[in-house]
């Protein structure tokens, strides 16, 4: 191995390099994979996970945990549809959805930061409560959208690429910048790395945590709106189990559950790996039961490779 190659593989961006290699392999081996249509379909399929992963990254980096994302996404989608139908204005409907998401996130944050209740339990509780509200509001049935303009959110294209993918890309950009270049991002990493030291250094730990959860809520609201538009209805049962996919994507992307470590590029790779795995399995027509096994093995391989890489690097 030449020195340059070694440096590339073992450097900060090593995960990205591994990913690119894997991507090239899949493109070669899986028929129909590397086509415009499939690429767009693939990207659209990771929009929800990808959007929510942006803020989940912050949450995990600050040593917190959020299980309520799936419920908030479903709830926000319901609100977007019902409010749009009721008010008759899509814009106001969207605002209402994002406001609801932010509100739930804010409540999460306050309970966790101020009352010092375990994040797992708190968000498990709001996960149930919010899902219950979504079910009650709709009587357990999907709610249709009155105005067809609503579908345009997901269907419209810009430069040939559907709007949701643009939204995802923009959010990746914004949160990557926020993580590395702003006081908020550094404070988040510091809190996760050493909460006590951050507090003693004068970081307003409680406020930062509340902000993280509120932002998470806003982002879930956006994801919920796009999802509702994509599936052309508000569904109270949508996005069940989303939390696990999002957290896995983040962890796969190198975010440490022990806090203090996160990169946007890692998270993007994590999200894409999961999306590509699903996509390729369906293209290869792998039977449903075997998909479980393949999914598990891919997860293991991905982290194993990354571990080998970083232990070759001598980091522990």
């Amino acid at each position, binding site marked *: 191995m030449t020195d340059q190659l070694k440096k590339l593989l073992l450097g900060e961006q090593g995960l990205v390099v591994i990913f690119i290699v894997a991507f090239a392999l899949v493109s070669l081996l899986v028929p129909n994979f590397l086509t415009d249509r*499939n690429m767009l379909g693939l990207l659209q399929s990771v929009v929800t996970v990808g959007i929510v992963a942006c803020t989940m990254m912050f949450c995990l980096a600050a040593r917190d945990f959020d299980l309520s994302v799936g419920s908030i996404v479903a709830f926000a989608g319901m609100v977007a549809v019902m409010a749009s139908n009721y008010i008759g204005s899509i814009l106001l409907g969207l605002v209402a959805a994002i406001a609801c998401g932010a509100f739930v996130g804010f409540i999460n944050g306050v309970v966790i930061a101020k009352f010092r209740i375990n994040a797992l339990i708190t968000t498990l509780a709001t996960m149930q409560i919010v899902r219950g509200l979504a079910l009650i509001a709709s009587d357990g049935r*999907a709610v249709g959208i009155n105005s067809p303009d609503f579908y345009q959110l997901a269907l419209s294209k810009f430069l040939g690429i559907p709007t949701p993918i643009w939204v995802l890309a923009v959010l990746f950009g914004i949160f990557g910048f926020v993580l590395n270049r702003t006081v908020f991002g550094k404070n988040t990493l510091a809190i996760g790395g050493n909460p006590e030291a951050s507090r003693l250094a004068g970081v307003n730990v409680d406020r930062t945590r509340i902000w993280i959860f509120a932002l998470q809520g806003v982002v879930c609201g956006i994801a919920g709106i796009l*999802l509702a538009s*994509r599936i052309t209805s508000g569904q109270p049962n949508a996005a069940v189990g989303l939390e696990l996919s999002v957290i896995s994507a983040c962890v796969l992307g190198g975010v440490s559950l022990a806090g203090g470590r996160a990169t946007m590029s890692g998270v993007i790779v994590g999200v894409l790996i999961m999306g590509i795995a699903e996509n390729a399995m369906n293209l290869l027509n792998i039977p449903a039961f075997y998909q479980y096994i393949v999914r598990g093995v891919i997860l293991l391989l991905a982290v194993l490779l990354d571990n080998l890489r970083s232990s070759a690097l001598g980091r522990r």
Partner: protein
Amino acid sequence: QDTKIGFIVKQPEEPWFQDEWKFADQAAKEKGFTLVKIGAEDGEKLMSAIDNLGAQGAQGFIVCTPDVKLGPGIVAKAAANNLKLMTVDDRLVGADGKALEDVPHMGISATKIGEAVGQAIVDEMKARGWKADEVGAIRVSYDQLPTAVDRVEGAISVLKANGFKAENIFDAPQAKTDTEAALNAATVVLNAHADIKKWVSFGLNDEAVLGAVRASESVGIPADGMIGVGIGGADSAINEFKKPAATGFVGTVIISPKRHGYETALNMYDWVANNKEPEKLILTSGALAKRDDYQKVRQGLGIQ
């Protein structure tokens, strides 16, 4: 050019859908087309699955949707990917709640199945000589799922029509759709009404009713004190009939996965390959199978 047809179902782990796929495969083998089977548990996965089919160059697909309200979205997505569309089991509805009649459909209405269950229970009660007001009913419910609501409501309507009192029908909400959850929920009902000795039970599927039957056994209600009638007729029900002694699980309403799988796939193939449009609506019916005649019933439905 090869013919490629997709078959998307909402719960790929369920035996029912496994069977649909199996019979669709049979059609594929006979006619020599490729069948792509994809599971899509929610609306988002479904949309991705349709895109995925488009990318693979399929010409049409059959779908059992996770939610009927996805109708307009599915139609739009199918059109965008230039795919022919048929539905099975659950019929798509528009934003206004009316069925999308343009989409060819094969299925059985949830309410109808529920009514068949209710009728089976009523018949068995008559056979055992039970009076309606000494009997309690366990409604194993999973209200998150609209189909589940329609099925149990169908059963209840028949019970009520036959003199069952509304206050004798008790709700046992299951937290998940597996047998253990139904068992736990039904146990609570049984224990709360220890004075009632005769019970009937119905629910979303065989697993739900089995839970109620197990619960009755665990609190010591004998087999002849319970009438459970399930829906589905796959192995969990058959296993019950194979037991050496009869249990409170009296019967199950079998819907034929053969017609739903084989015929839809065949129809779609004809549509794609021979441009022969299928009938807009084909309604199938369920058949009650009991301990003594389940083999015959299954054979009659073309499954074995």
